[in-house]
């Protein structure tokens, strides 16, 4: 009996220890960053490629899209996430953050206090951005208007409400996050791959997620149930996010020119307009240089063609 107790107790200690180690934050340090000053024009390009304002501008603030006061609600099966204020306000926003703290948020999903962020904030994608582009983006964000808006905490169900557990999630998912490599890519395809898998975070909606919200890399961009659920008693889904691989279920019939033009104009090849959440994404993409939209199109034509319901 005594021996059993010791064994159980030992396992509990070991389990706690393993949890503690695996869920530990893993921040970058200042010496890992290049000592360069921010290129604001490139920072602005990254801002539009990332679509920061689509989640962080105040809801419904179309005339005020550069004031990133936060507060957008994202109802999901795990609970309701609320986008934070990332304006340069020193108290309510991120005005006091150092460049290192900003980069740790973007690539390691860590707050300045080294708490884990929930991956509703798409750092599994942003981790693919270069330090140079992130330094530029931070420089650009610093030039935007401040807002003193205070955003309420996320409202999540247990056990998702325990932040420390996200460390385990990162251990399982962060390193394997899909970045599909194509064989012998041109410089244009490489640029598209970088934009799609980095700032653009296309997979955050277009790649299906497993039961813990991790991207399924073997179903890269093949369409997904919208993670967002409509508010209301029946919790009805807001629809299906399309397959954007070159499969007939996806956009196999679209030419590169069609993809490029759709991101520029908002019209698909049948001249239906984009709808739903893709409208803002398209309007962000329309602000990129034409060569970047062409690069995205070239990359999307080069990825594996997957049916919408592959296992």
């Amino acid at each position, binding site marked *: 009996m005594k021996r059993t107790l010791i064994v159980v107790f030992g396992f509990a200690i070991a389990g706690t220890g393993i949890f503690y180690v695996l869920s530990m934050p893993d921040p970058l340090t200042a010496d890992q960053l290049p000592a360069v000053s921010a290129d604001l024009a490139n920072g602005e390009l990254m801002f539009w490629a990332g679509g920061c304002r689509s989640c962080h501008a105040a809801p419904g603030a179309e005339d005020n899209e550069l004031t990133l006061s936060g507060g957008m609600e994202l109802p999901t099966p795990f609970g309701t996430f609320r986008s934070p204020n990332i304006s340069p306000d020193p108290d309510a926003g991120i005005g006091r953050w150092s460049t290192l703290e900003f980069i740790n948020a973007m690539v390691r999903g860590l707050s300045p206090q080294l708490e884990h962020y929930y991956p509703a904030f798409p750092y599994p994608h942003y981790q693919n951005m270069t330090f140079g582009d992130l330094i530029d983006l931070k420089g650009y964000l610093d030039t935007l208007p401040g807002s003193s808006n205070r955003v309420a905490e996320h409202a999540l169900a247990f056990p998702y409400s325990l932040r420390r557990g996200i460390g385990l999630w990162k251990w399982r998912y962060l390193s394997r996050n899909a970045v599909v490599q194509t064989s012998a890519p041109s410089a244009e395809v490489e640029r598209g791959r970088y934009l799609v898998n980095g700032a653009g975070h296309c997979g955050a909606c277009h790649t299906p997620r497993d039961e813990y919200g991790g991207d399924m890399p073997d179903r890269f961009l093949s369409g997904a149930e919208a993670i967002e659920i409509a508010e209301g008693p029946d919790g009805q889904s807001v629809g*299906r996010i399309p397959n954007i691989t070159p499969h007939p279920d996806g956009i196999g019939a679209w030419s590169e020119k069609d993809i490029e033009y759709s991101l520029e104009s908002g019209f698909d090849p049948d001249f*239906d*307009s984009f709808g*739903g959440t*893709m409208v803002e994404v398209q309007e962000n993409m329309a602000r990129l240089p034409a060569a970047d939209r062409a690069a995205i199109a070239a990359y999307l034509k080069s990825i594996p063609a997957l049916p919408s319901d592959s296992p």
Partner: protein
Amino acid sequence: MKKLVILTLAGAALGATTLATFAQDEAPFQNQIEARQSFMHIYRFNLGQLGAMAKGEAPYDAAEASAAATNLLAASKMNNRAMWPAGSDMSADGLEGVTWAKPELWSNMSEVGEKSRELTAALVAMAAVAGDGLGAVQSNMGAVADGCKGCHEPFRASKD
């Protein structure tokens, strides 16, 4: 003669009503949903005429561009209210995968009206200049897209 016309019209109306009733028996609101989707197809078809030119896939033709823009303007002025009966949204039984119209559309009818007037305004501008050259068509496509997205962003669910 006049009597014959009246009789014929009455017969046609009766026939149409009967057909509509049969159609409704097949699926809820099938007739109205088919009508509004066909109505959207008219938009897409004419936008495709302009868009092929704007995109550089078809040579610019002033008469064709003008005709397409005029059709779009006429469509936007058509009263299509009866195609959107209450309850014919995607959450209704049997309508998932048939329509992508979100229930919110019916609780925001004044916004729908406002957006529809914005689309008409964009098409008035397009129709006025579509015959003046490719540049005029290209520079007005964005405002027309905004007109479409005005309703598609808030009121239409994503679909495969």
